[in-house]
């Protein structure tokens, strides 16, 4: 009885959340090109995607940036988290707050300010500004993820390592890092996802000769929603679902 009650409350919420995605996935298999009417099942939109060189290029660019930005952000974000956890220093709470400010600040503000910065530095819009921008907005997410795991540890573990003759570096290398590895991976995945689907910030900092997937899709959609966009989006939903599951698995695992 109670279960039924719970379902009665959950179903509408989840329907609300996922109906758009479900519709999108269904229509990616619709053989009708223009209408929203169902004209039978087809794989052809997926096939058509593979023939679209512009799109494949953009996808490869996006992947490159996402992998590099996630890796950079994970390294820097993890170091920041460990520093915030381990050391007491002047202005520590300001640094901590700063992390969250970046996390919460609107993309549009980040985009404009990064554009301004890169202009001042004389950098041409394109790959490098894009990579730096993505790294920047990913760092706080990694830091927050890793910190939440560090906070769950017995603080005496680090003292135990020191007590057993490990210096700073080896304490980090042999105790802290292995213990927060799941969170580090999770942070990487999160960064990867964030980088893959960022539109607003990327719009400001990338140039015409370095197209990326979200911007490409955006351009395609402006000329009307086509079924191949549906197919592409469906693929991306699939990948995202996999990443989210991996992330949750990593964060749940104790060891």
């Amino acid at each position: 009885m109670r279960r039924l009650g719970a379902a009665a409350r959950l179903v509408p919420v989840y329907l609300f959340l996922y109906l758009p995605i479900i519709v999108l996935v269904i229509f990616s298999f619709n053989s009708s090109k223009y209408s929203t009417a169902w004209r039978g099942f087809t794989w052809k939109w997926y096939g058509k995607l593979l023939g679209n060189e512009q799109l494949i290029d953009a996808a490869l660019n996006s992947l490159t940036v996402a992998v590099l930005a996630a890796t950079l952000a994970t390294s820097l974000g993890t170091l920041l988290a460990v520093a915030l956890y381990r050391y007491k220093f002047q202005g520590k709470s300001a640094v901590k707050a700063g992390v969250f400010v970046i996390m919460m600040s609107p993309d549009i503000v980040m985009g404009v300010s990064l554009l301004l910065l890169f202009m001042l530095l004389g950098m041409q819009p394109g790959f490098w500004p894009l990579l730096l921008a993505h790294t920047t907005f990913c760092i706080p997410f990694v830091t927050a993820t890793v910190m939440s795991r560090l906070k769950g540890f017995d603080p005496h573990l680090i003292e135990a390592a020191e007590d057993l003759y490990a210096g700073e570096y080896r304490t980090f290398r042999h105790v802290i890092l292995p213990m927060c590895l799941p969170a580090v991976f999770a942070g990487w995945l999160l960064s990867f996802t964030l980088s893959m689907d960022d539109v607003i910030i990327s719009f400001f900092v990338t140039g015409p000769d370095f197209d990326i997937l979200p911007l490409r899709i955006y351009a395609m959609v402006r000329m009307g929603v086509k079924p191949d966009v549906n197919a592409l989006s469906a693929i991306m939903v699939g990948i995202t679902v996999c990443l989210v599951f991996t992330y949750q698995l990593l964060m749940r695992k104790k060891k």
Partner: protein
Amino acid sequence: MTGNNPIIRLENLVKRFDGATVLDGVSLDIRDGEFLTILGPSGCGKTTILRIIAGFETPDQGRVHLDGQPLNDLPANQRRVNTVFQSYALFPHMTVRENLAFGLKMNKVSRREAERRIDDALDMVDLSHLARRYPDRLSGGQQQRVAIARAVVNNPLALLLDEPLSALDAKLRKRMQVQLKHMCRELGMTFVFVTHDQEEAFAMSDRVVVMNEGRIEQVGTPEEVYEEPVNMFVARFVGETTILDGSVVSKERETLHAMVEGKACELETARDFLPGEAIKIVLRPEDIIVEQETDSEHALWLPGTVRDTVYKGSTWDMVIALDSGKDVLVTEFFNEDDERIWHKSGDRVMVSWYKGWEVVLPDEDVTAL
């Protein structure tokens, strides 16, 4: 066996946290190979002392010497002492064996030597069969033993243990107490053990340090601390006590003529007192004699009524309310040959104590506890 040269020397340690003085001039010599227990109520600074020795805290004043060498500027990872943490602090991502190997690896002990020492240590704590387990697959008692083995395997000059048994159930705790004491003897290693449990301290230690509010009140063998407490704090903290009020009439040599609970009597003490001085008479439950009829042999007979009796297996405990208003705790031991009458609640009795077993202390209005 226990040597006499100090392995650890604490000189006048002072430590403040946010302006609050946590250690207020602690000086202590810890002898090589002894089992020393630091005993005191919560918050008195026991953990802080251990952390200063281990190198996790720096004292604001004073010095620490280990084996004759000053330690103040040496970081924790270069001190030849090891800590057993109350929370065990086992590395969760390493097996039992890897946990034990950690210190040896960091210390660059050769592989063969390390293997041998790990085997010995695992054997000592009876965990050889669990060497490949991860800590989260062990019971509390097993984790405890891993923590001890992980520290001992490094062969430190001293082992620091901060309430390592407090998370164990009573039975396991008793077993571990015996085992720890045995290890201290066997390895000839100095153990510095922190607890707020008086019974535990007595069961294990060669010497006990009683602390209160950042100061050492008394250092001595368990017997000395129990039987000859130097002040009211120690008397009250260490074991059950009955405390009677009195005042000095006169003193000649070891004999003190005094008024106790309104009655004249003779007491024995080596301390100096002035006539008229207010005193406290400290009695342990087993010092006390309870009779229904009196003879004159004893110092003093105080009338009272039995209020509660508790059967404890090997002893029979009673609370007697004296007519003067004080409560007296009594422990009587069973003796099969004895045809003693066991008093019941409500009985009228006379109470006294074995002459010379009393401790006489100046009345210093202790507010602690």
